[in-house]
């Protein structure tokens, strides 16, 4: 009896579900629409793509996944890829696809985007940026007392007073940037020195920010938008943590981007180009600024209030696509005990 009930439940599940799949978002659909593989979260990207659909009438099919997983999938698909456009969380993934020669030329006007935020060969372009910053507890420190360089964190003054999120991807790309900029030896020394100087480790950027806000540590290294998000949520005045941008060319001021590329084999090149153009247009750039608190990358769209313009946060001079040597960074973090 019970056996039969189980079989009945399974069959019901299959038939009901099958019917639903048949009438839902067209899972077996053809290639009429433009297909975007997005490594950025749907909650962020869906409204943006909806805006694009409304404006142009071009239907966009969206496949969401992790940036790295989707990059591996595109490489595995080769010429058979279903992706017309790849929207990546970071420049490293785009650089890897470019090296594997699966990206086509954008042929979209990207002159308004600074050169350091796009591929030299024109295969991808950054559409929004995030800066590494230092947050401090305004109850114990004035802005001028806060260091201008991450290298100052090894000084005895800061012993046990600062926090990081070492397993976070953004911290790891900052370390990669430091390696590219200052070399392996100096980076390894810095990693060992901050540990000797009593660095406190946290799970993620938000936890670092919270720790500074409640006074557990005086300084913390995070991405800028976490502070702006929290400031909007709770009100700027309710926060004890304040934000400071590090000095120019300091590895701690790295600006990384999320970017897009058009796949080489796409048969919807025109529509794909329209999407890239749209992501660089004022409405999309304003969306990044106001909704996700990222940096707009196109000249002419001013950053959110309280953010210094990108020209002032010039950050270290490195090719973002060179941040694809994370494996060496992980080995380095492993060696120095920060995992």
């Amino acid at each position, binding site marked *: 009896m019970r056996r039969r009930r189980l079989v009945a*439940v399974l069959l019901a599940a299959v038939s009901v*579900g099958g019917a*639903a799949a048949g009438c839902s978002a067209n899972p077996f659909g053809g290639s009429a629409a433009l297909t975007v593989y997005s490594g950025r979260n749907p*909650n962020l990207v869906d409204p943006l793509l909806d805006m694009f659909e409304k404006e142009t009438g071009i239907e966009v099919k*969206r496949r969401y996944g992790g940036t790295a997983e989707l990059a591996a999938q595109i490489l595995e698909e080769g010429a058979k890829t279903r992706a017309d456009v790849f929207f990546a969380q970071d420049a490293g993934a785009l650089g890897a696809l470019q090296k594997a020669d699966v990206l086509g030329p954008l042929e979209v006007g990207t002159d308004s985007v600074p050169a350091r935020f796009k591929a030299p060969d024109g295969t991808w372009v950054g559409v929004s940026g995030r800066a590494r910053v230092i947050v401090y507890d305004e109850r114990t420190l004035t802005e001028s007392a806060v260091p201008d360089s991450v290298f100052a964190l090894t000084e005895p003054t800061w012993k046990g007073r600062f926090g990081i999120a070492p397993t976070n991807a953004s911290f790891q790309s900052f370390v990669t940037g430091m390696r590219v900029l200052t070399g392996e030896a100096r980076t390894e020394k810095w990693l060992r020195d901050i540990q000797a100087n009593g660095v406190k480790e946290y799970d993620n950027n938000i936890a670092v920010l919270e720790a500074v806000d409640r006074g557990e540590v005086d300084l913390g290294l995070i991405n800028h938008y976490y502070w702006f998000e929290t400031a909007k949520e709770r009100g700027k005045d309710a926060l004890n943590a304040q934000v400071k941008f590090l000095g120019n060319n300091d590895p701690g001021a790295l600006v990384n981007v999320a970017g897009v590329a058009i796949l080489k084999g796409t048969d919807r090149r025109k529509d794909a180009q329209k999407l890239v153009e749209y992501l660089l247009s004022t409405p999309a750039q304003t969306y990044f600024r106001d909704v996700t608190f990222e940096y707009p990358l196109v000249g002419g769209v001013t950053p959110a209030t309280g953010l210094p313009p990108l020209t002032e946060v010039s950050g270290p001079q490195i090719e973002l696509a060179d941040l694809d040597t*994370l494996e060496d960074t992980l*080995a380095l973090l492993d060696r120095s005990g920060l*995992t």
Partner: protein
Amino acid sequence: MLVIPALLVAVGALLPVAYLGVRATERGFDTVAEVLFRERTAALLGRSTALAVSVTVASIVIGVGLAWLTVRCRLPGGGVWAVVAALPLAIPTYVAGFAYISRFPSLAGFRGAWLVLTLYSYPYVYLPVAGALRGLDPAMEEASRSLGVGAWRTFTGVTLRQLRPAIAAGGLLVSLYVFSDFGAVSLMRFDAFTRVIYQSYQSSFDRTPAAILGALLVVVTVLIVVAEGRSRGRVRYSRTGKGTARRPAAVDLGRWRWPATLTVTGIAALTLGVPGVTLGIWLQRGISTGQSFADTGEAALGSLTAAGLGAVVTVAAAVPVALLAARYRSPLANAVERASYAGHALPGLVIALSLVFFATRYVDVLYQRLPLLVIAYFVLFLPLAVGAVHAAAVQAPPVLDDVARSLGSSPWRVLRTVTAPLTAPGVAAGAALVFLTCMKELPATLLLRPTGFDTLAVRVWEETGAGEYAAAAPPAALLVLVAAIPTWLLTRHGRDLT
């Protein structure tokens, strides 16, 4: 009659291994040697093995203990405990791991990974052992006791020995699960195989080192499966006497009754209480911010479709393999059964990429369509079904088949009228187990689902990825509730045997 379908199934199960062979060697054997003989690789192997062994041992202790307490003893609450003990299976490790790490951050590392994996994979031991205990003929134990052997020695010398195949089969699934799990080790930041394989994709976008580590994982799997096969030996476990087995009398624990109840309750508090509280907090926050269950409906139907089809296809594929292994102990039958385990320790991401590779090259028409996702579930979870069907098949005396044959029935008729009814409970159990495991699956689902096709697991991933825990609550709660149904059915099936 069984050989050809069984061979086809084995070939399907070996697809990921072929893919790993291609990717691992594409840059020559120097790279293979370089990755394999890195210091980090040896450390990784040691860490993962230590985790697998300690989780397996702990799971056997908890699984066998709970099975004995819930099947053989009188506990206040009665049959409820049999269901409660199996329910952790309904909770994905990425939900449970999150609950633990956010409440107890100091658990990060080996301890946390060990705790979460043990708490959520011991049911793989509990279920077959509870089933076997119910089907066990008490005559042997009674004979032992009547000959003056004490209760404890009877338990270790007679009962446990008869439970050995069930314990070994469950332990095998636990150890392979530990190698393949990503949720617990990544949340606990413990560098086991899956986490390092993921990092390899994430950090260098290079598929070769990841494939080499995957291939190493396959070798480890083969060693574990062969070792389990050895431990099974050539003993027979079906009844040989006349008549049917009686139900054993329930043990009265006397003054141990309350400590035993406390233990069972404590384990339930750890497995169900901790994630329950976290989900409750999410839900509460969700309701107060106006989240509703309404938009999870489509994702729920997606989950039911994919998991339902996955269960049906996987069990259908498992039947010939399990029957072949149970009835004919030939080297070929053994090899086919072991091949079915090939992909079981591999992370879902590797299985998914291997199917992307084969589908886009040879059967492009299936790519990003539901059948390919179902095939991925079949490759990932075949051993769960094979194990369940096999366990039922070996408890049915093979002599019944022989008698039917000798009386002139055709092989097909024997299969239909004798073997099938005897193994049906195993088929149902395998289907339920595969169904609920498919419900929880995430990495392969993300890569292989049709574009726009959502499941509950995908929704949980999307919302937690954006930090929207309130919005993640409805799909997460629904996922656990729906997965609890087959889990509950699993605890019932053992009774059909008696």
